[in-house]
């Protein structure tokens, strides 16, 4: 017999709400659950921004500690995860500023470039092109390629396409307008596509 399912997500409170309430009530083990749930994502975001493993380790610790300290300020009108990501992005940018003393570091860095906004490489890719490389080679190609993107494009691509935030959540997290997020996302996707084409185009099969 068919049963009526509630519409997923929208009407039910997010499971994090209960965990956050438990932490606020003094249950530290609930925070343990939140850390385990999101540590990989936070570490990944920190690595993408700082491009340094030690910095990413520090950012991950600092972000979770800061979120714990500031939990009373968490309003609950955004998701806990989005709020946590915003803290991690800010911590990552602060860490970069420390490394590059005297240089401004912001998510607006280098976004004026027109590079890659008009596709030039129009060759089709091999079917399942990633299978022409082993795991380590592929990870290196993907790392090198995304590291070459301007910071302001890279963060938008990572939050939106890798971590699965919505356009609105990405805009809120980064303090950007929705049109700015959309414009950066399109250019990030096109630049990555263009750069990956070197490795994945059909006539390059077998060449590494």
């Amino acid at each position: 017999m068919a049963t009526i399912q509630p519409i997923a997500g929208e009407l039910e409170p997010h499971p994090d709400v209960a965990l956050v309430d438990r932490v606020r009530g003094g249950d530290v083990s609930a925070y343990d659950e939140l850390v385990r749930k999101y540590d990989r994502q936070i570490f990944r975001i920190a690595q993408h921004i700082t491009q340094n493993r030690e910095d990413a380790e520090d950012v991950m610790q600092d972000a979770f500690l800061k979120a714990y300290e500031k939990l009373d300020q968490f309003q609950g009108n955004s998701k806990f995860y989005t709020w946590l990501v915003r803290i991690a992005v800010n911590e990552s940018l602060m860490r970069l500023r420390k490394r590059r003393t005297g240089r401004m570091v912001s998510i607006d860095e280098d976004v004026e470039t027109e590079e890659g906004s008009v596709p030039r490489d129009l060759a089709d890719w091999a079917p399942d092109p990633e299978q022409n490389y082993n795991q380590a080679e592929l990870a290196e190609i993907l790392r090198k390629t995304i590291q070459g993107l301007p910071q302001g494009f890279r963060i938008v691509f990572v939050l939106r396409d890798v971590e699965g935030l919505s356009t609105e959540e990405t805009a809120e997290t980064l303090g950007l307008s929705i049109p700015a997020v959309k414009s950066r996302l399109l250019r990030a996707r096109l630049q990555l596509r263009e750069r990956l084409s070197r490795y994945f185009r059909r006539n390059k099969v077998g060449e590494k």
Partner: protein
Amino acid sequence: MTCSQFLALLDDLIDDSVTPELRAGLQQHLRGCEHCEVILNTTRKTIEIYRSHEIYDLPAGLRERLHAAIMARCKKGC
């Protein structure tokens, strides 16, 4: 529809946020434009590859160490 117009709507098509009328127009362009078809398919593949491959993994040992450090400080009230 020109290739530039198609490109301006590429993200909306990939993210499935186009009206049925617009989708029909985009699909009509695709039927006659091999280049835009390649751009659409390879851009989709780009996103899929980045989404499905872990390029910055967090090894179990490091994860446990960081986790223990965070929780120890939380228990002390940070």
